[in-house]
């Protein structure tokens, strides 16, 4: 896939990290404000998509990236499940999805028990999944054109 002009490339270089950071902000504040893992993950994937669109990419690099994203996705979704199962094992009451971490003070960033952790895992999962879908489409497009 070919890239765009130098103006677009430079602007993207400036903007993409900020978008990524904003996505991460949404993810870690999921338990305090609107948004959360899913919305933040999509925004984070947006930064990657922007980079690929602006700078273009070589097919082999894309395939490698897809491989890594798939691994991240599977690990994230497995971690989500593992945390839920930990509730079953750690807490004395044996309850699936038990919030076993100390809940802290309401309104603090570090509060609400394991919900922020789950949010981060969901964010990673959605980020990887949306990027994988996009990269798969680009790869398909490139292969058809070949």
């Amino acid at each position, binding site marked *: 896939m070919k890239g765009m002009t130098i103006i677009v490339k430079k602007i993207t270089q400036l903007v993409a990290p900020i978008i990524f950071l904003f996505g991460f902000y949404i993810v870690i504040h999921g338990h305090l404000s609107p948004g959360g893992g899913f919305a933040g993950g999509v925004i984070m994937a947006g930064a990657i998509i922007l980079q690929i669109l602006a700078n273009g990419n070589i097919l082999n690099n894309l395939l490698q990236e897809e491989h890594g994203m798939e*691994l991240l996705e599977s690990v994230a979704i*497995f971690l989500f*499940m593992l945390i839920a199962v930990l509730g*079953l094992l750690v807490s004395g*009451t044996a*309850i*699936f*999805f*038990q*919030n076993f971490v100390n809940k802290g003070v309401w309104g603090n960033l570090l509060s609400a028990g394991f919900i922020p952790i789950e949010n981060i895992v969901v964010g990673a999962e959605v980020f990887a999944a949306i990027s994988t879908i996009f990269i798969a489409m680009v790869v398909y497009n490139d292969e058809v054109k070949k």
Partner: protein
Amino acid sequence: MNSLIPLFVIIPLGSAFLMVILERFLKNICKVITPFALLSLLILTLHFILRVEDTQIYKVGGFEPVNGIPIAIYMVIDGLSKFVLLIISLVGFFSILYSLSYTNQYTSENKFYVLFSLLIAGMNGVVISGDIFNIYVFLEIAAIASYALVAFGVEKQQLEATFKYQILGGIASMIILMTIGLIYWNTGTLNIADIYTQISNQNSLFLKFVSLLFVAGFGLKAAIFPFHSWLPDAHSSAPSPISAMLSGVLIKAIGIYVVFRLFFNMFPLSHEIAMTITVLGTISMIVGVLLAIGQWDLKRLLAYHSISQMGYVIIGVGIGMLVIVTGGDKKIAALSIAGGLFHMINHSVFKGLLFLNAGAIEYRTGTRNLQRLGGLAKFMPITSSTSFIASMSISGIPPFNGFFSKVLIIVAAVRAGYNWIAFFAVFVSVITLASFTKVQKYAFHNNDGNKWLKKNIKEVPFSMSFSMIIMALLCLGLSFFIVPEVRDIFLNPAVQILVDTMEYSTKIVGM
């Protein structure tokens, strides 16, 4: 609370995600993990059936009800759930054993096992879920996994079939989601037991509308008569162990089971709905078999028979519903429902076996066109004999299991006064026998099969023949469900849930 209940979802879901990670490092890990996961599910189900009595509920997250209103997600295991879980894990385990050799022909085998585990997780989730929204969520997991599995061969015909299946399945899911929204709007709750307490006194137009939407939505998933057109394509194009799962288990777990659960335990029983279900069941029984007899594609023929046999299950339970609504003898209702549920497990076993046989034939000869087959009995003795047993079971020949369940349904229909339905049930059974005589003749006998000699056709590998033999033995073994002592353990708890319609909600709201 019984903390073993969430394991029914955790085990298949966890093994699916674990396999996606591990398959990068260990090539054949999927073929080890999946059978063990399925085996542990089977053991867990048997533990629940044999050791745990009464209704068990589980509140996810441990949230207790507030002022008697349930707020947590409920997982419920009662007689009916246990019965359907038994079907899922039994057929699932033998299908996966069969797949171990069968999937060698595909390039990305590992994805097959991942999707298979997700399919099992979705179906288990539907069966143990206690609220309608989670039924929808798990139903989608199962449905999306099955869309991908139908297209697993990625050939033209399979892609077309899965496209059709996705569109109709998507319409069904949309109808179901919309109906759930309507119910939530009216009652303010999603818990099945809680909904029952709120709408049990109503008899409004709204309820009738919502019931009909559910019949349409889950009817599409279960391939009841006017909604059946996707089934023959999808079930015949899928890889054979998946066809066995789709026909044998999926249409029951996410279609028929939910219909029974909702119309017995959530909606107040109504004569109109009972009549609708019974009539649709009768029509699909007749239409399915009439469409089946002319088919020459072996798997397509079997798929049409699935529609017909599901008709038996529906009329069995439908007559029971009619008898309860009209205030008839509860013993007749129980007999009829027992017949329907008994036919459900029987059908999953013999139809699963028939699809596995069809897969074995396709695996060795490369075709499933009956006109090009013939004389295979000499070359594939195990496939031939197990297929004979399954054919006799589906046609209702004693002493195989299909006979006993059909007899129960027909006797109940006559005693309840629905003579026409009994007549049609016998009539369809005769045509079924005719069409399976055709299968036996054209696939296994007909000619001396000298053309197979040149191609060096032999029996299928061990894992495939082993699971076919066990399924054939089950066709005989399930006949023992008719013995009262065995029936008390496996069948009667499920029947009891459907006959005492109110008990479900009083038990759960009380806990």
